[in-house]
């Protein structure tokens, strides 16, 4: 850590650690611009390739919500790998742990940073859907969409950080991430897609029908934020 970071190190409190780690992760992203230069283009390419594969404006408009969240999920895999590659390159995570830094703080910090990046990603994907797939957004729909985006990305960030921590590290583990992560995030995919359908008004679904799905997303986010914070330390202790 830089000397500036050491000066501000507020001991071993969870919140202090979380703030530092989140700031560090976001700073790394700002400097390296991996999200901007690599992940966002990847997400856009995926959206374009869906159009090639599905080959029908009517179908695209109908499945736009699903495509947005599929692209988001695939991008999450990349972003989670990236989030931990930053740590394992110099064995930074191990050093942090042996220095007595609370695992819960590391988890919350990385989760917050990941969530911030995911929010940027999902915003872009929704814009892409409006442009490429002719999705339509009303004001009421926008409120629903923003809430959905925040809740869903929170859940994704939580499970991503948790399983990402496990899948990071030794060679041959990275391929474990999709296998572990994708089944777990099924509720997010289902809930976010249905809520987004309501927001876009796809297939005549009204905005009001989307809010129950938000409940599912919220339960998921809370459940895995808490479990993740608790399980992160034991899972990563080697």
């Amino acid at each position: 850590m830089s000397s500036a970071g050491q000066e501000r190190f507020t001991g071993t409190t969870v919140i202090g650690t979380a703030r530092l780690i989140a700031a560090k992760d976001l700073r790394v992203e700002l400097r390296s611009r991996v999200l901007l230069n690599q992940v966002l283009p990847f997400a856009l390419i995926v959206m374009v390739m869906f159009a090639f594969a599905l080959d029908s404006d009517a179908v695209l408009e109908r499945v736009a919500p699903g495509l947005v969240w599929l692209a988001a999920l695939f991008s999450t895999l990349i972003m989670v790998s990236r989030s931990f590659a930053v740590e394992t390159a110099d064995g930074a995570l191990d050093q942090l742990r042996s220095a007595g830094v609370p695992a819960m703080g590391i988890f919350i910090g990385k989760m917050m940073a990941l969530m911030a990046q995911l929010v940027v990603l999902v915003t872009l994907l929704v814009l892409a859907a409006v442009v490429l797939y002719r999705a339509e957004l009303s004001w009421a729909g926008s409120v629903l969409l923003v809430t959905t985006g925040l809740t869903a990305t929170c859940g994704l960030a939580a499970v991503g950080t948790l399983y990402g921590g496990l899948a990071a590290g030794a060679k041959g583990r990275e391929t474990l991430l999709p296998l572990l992560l994708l089944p777990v995030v099924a509720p997010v995919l289902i809930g976010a897609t249905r809520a987004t359908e309501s927001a876009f008004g796809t297939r005549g679904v009204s905005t009001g029908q989307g809010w129950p799905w938000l409940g599912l997303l919220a339960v998921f986010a809370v459940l895995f934020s808490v479990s993740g914070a608790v399980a992160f330390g034991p899972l990563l202790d080697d």
Partner: protein
Amino acid sequence: MSNDRATSTPFTKGLGFFVVLGIALLIILGIFVSPADVNQGESVRIMYAHVPGAWLAYLAFVMTAVSSAAYLWKRTRSLTWDRIAGASAEVGVLFMAMTLLSGSLWGRITWGTFWVWDPRLTTTAFLFVTYLGYLAVRGLGGTAEQRARRSSVIALLAVLEIPLVHFSVVLWRSLHQRATVLSPDGDIKMDGLMLFTLLFGVFGFTVLFAWLVSHRQRIIAMQDAQQINALDAAVTERLKEVQA
């Protein structure tokens, strides 16, 4: 010959005897003795292979979860629990694959398709993939203690996520207003002998499960011991080299 006692004990030999008997009886009852169904005809016989297999798969999952919790709880921590969890998962994943296979064959006959997206099937498919992930985590290497800790946490996370996945799918499919709950056993009139055969199958498979897990748990123990011995031997060799 000491090899005869490899992974067997008098207890498992007794279990094994009943397993052989039970399986043979189940096949006879299932294929020859039990009656055909009024609605499904002969194809109902698939049930006697499918349902006990599904039962075993779910039982194995529960066993893995319980053993994982037992390992994590300090008062009952013992690597035996980890081995039981692993053995259960190995057996469970196999039977879950067979359940999905036999179920889709049955579905082909009763519904005309190999697959439907109803909550029970979808959750079972998810359970299967989750199992595979669990086994992959067990294979990450390291000491037995490391493996035990990692996989027991993963198992408990799975206990959390499977009901959530199931609930999501139930909500999702209820949107499509299925009037009838599509399940192969939905329209079977349970004749007394049919019910007996089914329960006998479930019981027999439970005994089979106990036999399999006992043996496989001991196999894992021997594999772990082998690894430790190999490590010790390598260290001793190295020390000899250094001292020579």
